Each structure stands twice: as C-alpha cells, then as structure tokens.
C-alpha cells in the first residue's frame, strides 16, 4: 500500500500525494470566458488547489458544462475506516440448505417486496425468482426457503401485516427509485412499523437496491443491506447464518 509521509492518503494522479481529482458539472449560466473563470473559482472554493478548467462549453441557453482538474488539499487515514460487509457469508445453495436443515430443521419463510410506490421489481426478482442472477439461483430454488414475492408497490402496512399473518422469518424490502430520498423514507417507515407492532426482533430485516449500502442499512436499523451486483446466495447466506446464530443464542440462554 502506498502511504504518504503523513500516513494519510490522497487521490493519486501520477505521483504520490499529488491529490489529482477530476470533476464535471453544469452551471446554470451562459457560457463565456468569465463562466470558465467562475467554474475555476468555484472549484477553488471547494478546497481544491491548482485548479484547471480543461473544458467549458455551452450546452443549452443559460447552461454551461465544465470538466475541471484540481488537487485535493484533504487526505484521509484509510486504515481507520471500517464498513462491514453483509456478504461475508459465502456459501453455496447446497451448503445453505444443509445449514438450515441442520440448525433450524424447518423451512425458512422469506417475503420480498418493492415497498411504497416503487414499481421496479428487477432487484427483488433477481434475488427471489428461481432463475436468479448471473447464474446464481434465486431463493425460490432452495429447498429450505419458502418464498413470497409480493411484487411491486406494496404498502409498508401491507408488508407488515403479511409478515405477521404468514409468520415470516426474513423480510426483504427493495427500493430502486431514490428520487428525493423516497427510498430512505420507505425503509425507515418499515422499521418503525415493525417496531410499533413488536415484530422487529422476530424477523431478519434486509433492504436492497442499487444505492443501498450495508452501512446505510445498519444506520436505519436493518440487519443487512445489499447493493448493486448482489447475488441471491449472498442474501441467502446472510439469512441462514443470522437465523442459525439466533438458534445458538436461544440455546445458550436456556
């Protein structure tokens, strides 16, 4: 690892600690040489040094586009940063089925839905449908999962009601649309309602979507969060491991 003299890291262009960063953005002003200068000064105010506007042009009446390089004056100690991954449970479908059979001795009931008004089922379908994603089978295919794919636009209240009525072990909430924070609002509403109904601790609660991170999931009160490129077996492995841990804990308490 390349650590600068300070022990901190900076963006790397072609020399250690040169801090080179590229930015591109639009300003709502007509293009002119003064607009280029405005872009340069703006990036300098952001804290970048050696700012160069390498491209500036008009893209519409009253709008200009810029490509800018600058050197970061900030650095970070990357060794002190932790972002736990929920994908640390790499197991095959057979291993997961075996684990559940062995530790739980019953089928695990999983319900998934696109909550709120979101109608994009791509993610939840990739995880749940038999076919799966990238050659990795979906949860429907597992012997030890009983799955309920509730599809799109499932109200949070409905999702919680189903969780209760069908005694669901794991809930998968998906959000693809993130405009104006709608994803976080819906995810939060689900946790709050589960807590209000005294169900939060009874389920493994998982969120997913292209913008979801495990860190964000933890902050919202979820057990795990899965982002873009997630394979069904990664979600299945997490559910299985978490449920197996719970069984251990219960036994330990006895």
């Amino acid at each position: 690892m390349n650590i600068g003299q300070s022990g901190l890291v900076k963006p790397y262009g072609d020399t250690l600690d040169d801090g080179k960063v590229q930015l591109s953005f639009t300003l709502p002003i007509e293009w002119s040489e003064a607009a280029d200068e405005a872009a340069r000064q703006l990036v300098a105010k952001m804290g970048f040094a050696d700012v160069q506007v390498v491209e500036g042009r008009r893209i519409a009446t009253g709008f200009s586009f810029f490509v800018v390089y600058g050197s970061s004056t900030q650095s970070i100690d990357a060794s002190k940063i932790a972002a736990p991954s929920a994908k640390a449970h790499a197991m095959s479908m057979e291993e997961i089925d075996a684990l559940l059979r062995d530790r739980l001795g019953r089928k695990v009931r999983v319900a998934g839905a696109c909550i709120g008004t979101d109608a994009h089922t791509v993610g939840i379908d990739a995880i749940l449908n038999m076919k799966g994603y990238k050659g990795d089978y979906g949860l429907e295919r597992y012997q030890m999962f009983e799955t309920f794919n509730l599809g799109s636009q499932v109200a949070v209240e409905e999702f919680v009601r189903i969780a209760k009525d069908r005694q669901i072990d794991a809930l998968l909430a998906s959000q693809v649309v993130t405009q104006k924070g709608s994803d976080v609002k819906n995810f939060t509403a689900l946790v709050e309602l589960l807590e209000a109904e005294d169900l939060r601790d009874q389920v493994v609660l998982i969120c997913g979507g292209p913008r979801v991170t495990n860190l964000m999931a933890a902050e919202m009160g979820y057990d795990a969060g899965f982002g873009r490129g997630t394979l069904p077996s990664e979600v299945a492995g997490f559910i299985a491991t978490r449920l197996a841990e719970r069984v251990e804990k219960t036994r330990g308490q006895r």
Partner: protein
Amino acid sequence: MELRIDPSVVAACRSLAARVARPVEEFIAGHSTVAVERSVLRLLGVDGVNAEEIPLPNLLVDSLSPEQRAQGVALAFGRALAETGLEPAALAEEIAAGRTTLAAYDATPAAAARGALAPHVERAMARIAGRREERRAALERAPQGEPPLLYVIVASGNIYEDRTAAVAAAEAGAQIIAVIRSTGQSLLDFVPYGPTTEGFGGTYATQANFAIMREALDVIGEKLGRYIMLTNYASGLCMPEIASMAALERLDMLLNDSMYGILFRDINMKRTFVDQHFSRMLNAYSGIIINTGEDNYLTTADAVEQAPAVLASQFINEEFAHRAGMPDRQIGLGDAYEIDPALQDGFLFQVAQAQLTRQIFPDAPLKYMPPTKHMTGDIFKGHLIDAMFNLTSVMTKQTIHLCGMLTEAIHTPFLGDRALAIENARYVMNTARHFGDEISFKPDGLIETRARDVLRDCRTLLEKVEARGLMDSIAAGVFADVKRPPDGGRGFDGVFARGEGYYNPFEEALRA
C-alpha cells in the same frame, strides 16, 4: 447491408401472429372496461375533479348501475344530455354536485341519447383531426431531421423543471422528448388532474402537464426550425384515457404495448387487451406513433436467450395494432441493446437483431432502447457502451433512438448527462452515417446465422403460443417466464361484458 433470411419464415410468423390475435379479438369485441368508458366521457368533454379530488369521469362511470354499465356510459350520459340540454362539462358538474344523477333518465329512448351525443362526438373527432393537421403542417414547416431520431427522457417529478430540461435537450439536438411518469402511475385506476410538481422517478401524466410541455416544445421547435415530438405513456390501467388526452393535446408518441402491463405490472390480461385496442384505435386516428415495450423482456431476463421472444412480441404487437386500424408508419416496435458487454461478439448479436427487425418491419418506425441492465456506476464504461449502441442504431437504420445516459442506474438524468448523451449520439451517427450502406454481411457468418436462429426460434415460440392460445400461454409463463392468470392481476373488476345494445359512439366514429 442485407441479411439473407427466408421470407417464407417471416410470412409464417405473421400468419401465426394473426391466428394468435384472432380469438383475443373476439374477446375484445364482446367486452369493455371502466377505462374505455371513462375515455368516452373525456372525449365528450368531461374533465375536472370533485372536492375529494376524484376525477369526474371516474365518479360518473362508478355511479352506473351494472345494467347501465353494460350498455356503455355514453347511453346513460346521452340520455341525461338529451333531458337536461346541458353541455357535457356542465352536466358532469351537476352530477358531481349531487343535483342530478345518471339514474334519473333511464326511461329516455336510446335514439334521443344518440342524437344528443352526436354533436359532441363530432366536435371531439374534429378537434382530434385538427390536432393531427397541426402536426402535419408543423412537420412540413419545420422537419424533424433524419432518423435515428434522438429521443431523451425528462423525469424530475416537477413539470416546470421538466420543461426547462426538455427545452435544453431540444437545443442540444434532441428530436423527441418523453416525460417519464411517476413510478406507480400505471397502477392508478384514474388519471390525476392539473399541473403537478411532485412525483417519484417521474412526473404524473395529466392533461394539464401535457399542455404545458406541448406549448414549450412548440415554442422551442419554432425557434430551432425543427418540430420537437412529445411522448408519454398510454400504459397501465388508464391506457385509453391517456390516449384520448394525448389526442386532444397533440402528443406525437405514446408508449403502448399489448402485453407489457400484463407481464411486468401484473395488470389483468383481459383488461389490457380491451384497453390496448380502444387506445390504439384512438392513436391510429390521432396520428400518434406507438412505442412498444419489448425492451422489458431483455431487462428482466438474459438478452441473448430472450431474442426470439422479442421478435415474437413484435409480431403480436404489429398484429394487434393492425387490427386496431394502425398503419405501419405508426407502429414503433421496440428492441433494446441489452446483451451482457462481457459476452464475446455480443455486438455482432446486437447488430443481427437490430437488422433483422429492420428488415422484417421495413415501414415501422422502430424504437431502439439503450443499455440499462448492464450499466453500473462506472460512467466511463457506460458512455462507451452507449457509443456502441449508437453505432448499431445508425448502421441498422433504427428510427426512434432513445439516447443512453452515462449515469443510467445512478439517477434520473441530470441536464448535463442529457447533453453528453446527445453529443455522443450525434458524433457517432455523423461519423458513421452511411456505414451500413457500405458494408455487407459475410454470407452464413456469425451475424447472419444468429439472425436466422432468432427468426427460427421465434417461429417455434409463436407456434407454441398459437397452439395454447395467447391467454393460456401468458398464464403458463411462456413470455418472460412470468405467469399471469386470465382472471388475476389488477383491474380485472373493471372489465365487463357488453350487453345488448352496447354503444360507444367513438368506436363507431373511429371505424368509419
């Protein structure tokens, strides 16, 4: 650049599609839906909402008795028009205010109702014809430029922000603007009212929003000397209503697929089949080009595997559109550039499919959709994949080209993203403008073989669908691996059998 394909296989596919559609059409002819009836009212001039924000067309159709509904809303409404002597809008207001009801005029003869309706029907038809004529004249005055026509999406949720973005995109070179709808609108069984400034993942389709965008595009189109087309969505539970509003506000294109809602939005199949038919009759008359949604097969499953299903769906969409009276020049069949970029020779497969579609549907304004499924946060790679898509489009002479965004999969496009996407397309399409005319395919090479394989498998698939029937095939998961039962899904309760004496004056006028 021609693929050597067997025309007898193409002809076989067309006749299979005709046999697939025939029994469905019999069903369509015997049924109507609440959405069809509401669009009859909208065309007659009923609009607005009551104090609870319920649109008056919904209020009136929901007030019908089952017996009245089976006759079509026009007769009940026409009886009330005849007896009260009111204009349609005023009559609807009276009913909304509770001062009269559609139940009060049951004794009035049907002939009187028809007579009272006639001038309003004529007025609506004339208004739509006028809008069509406006488009024709505008296109003559300010032609669009040559295809592939650059189509971009605006989707801020706020119609006024959308307007700013649309005007900027037109200045950058866009020839078609589509306003993406708020997520979830397809599942609303009503059309929201008035200008809207809040939506998620898109902006509500309302008649007022249509008018706001139309005006802005007309102004910038005049300034640029290029007519800018406007697109929205006649899909979901309100297909025919959106088609009527679009006809009245001179939209130029509508996304409108005979099966999309069934497969991908779990809308009841009977509802969809009936709704798509009446909406396409309207689209045919209003000169609106439909865009079908075959790209969805490719985004939800493997694109190489699904290629025959895409072609089969194109044949079925073409057949249903023909049956609704649409000419080829208004049938924008869909395809998409969705093959995994990691696949060796994937580009060759894309070219094969795009060229195959071009040759099989020579007069259709094909709609080519950009990569979305394999787009990641890597905007640099995304921009490059978009360039390959642009090349395929210009080589194979696609007509409607939805510009791919480098930030696909990240956010709804920024203004700058759209400008970059249009520049990418303009560069590639200019530098390779006549490339397709200069090259020929290697006989029996990878591209030609792939095209023939897709066509052959499409025929097999259509044979299977024809043998089972379309509704049973959809129930069995033949399309996109999605299973939808004939009486399941959203909106089924809004489908009803036409009773003796059922009357839809617009259906008659549109057939004439």
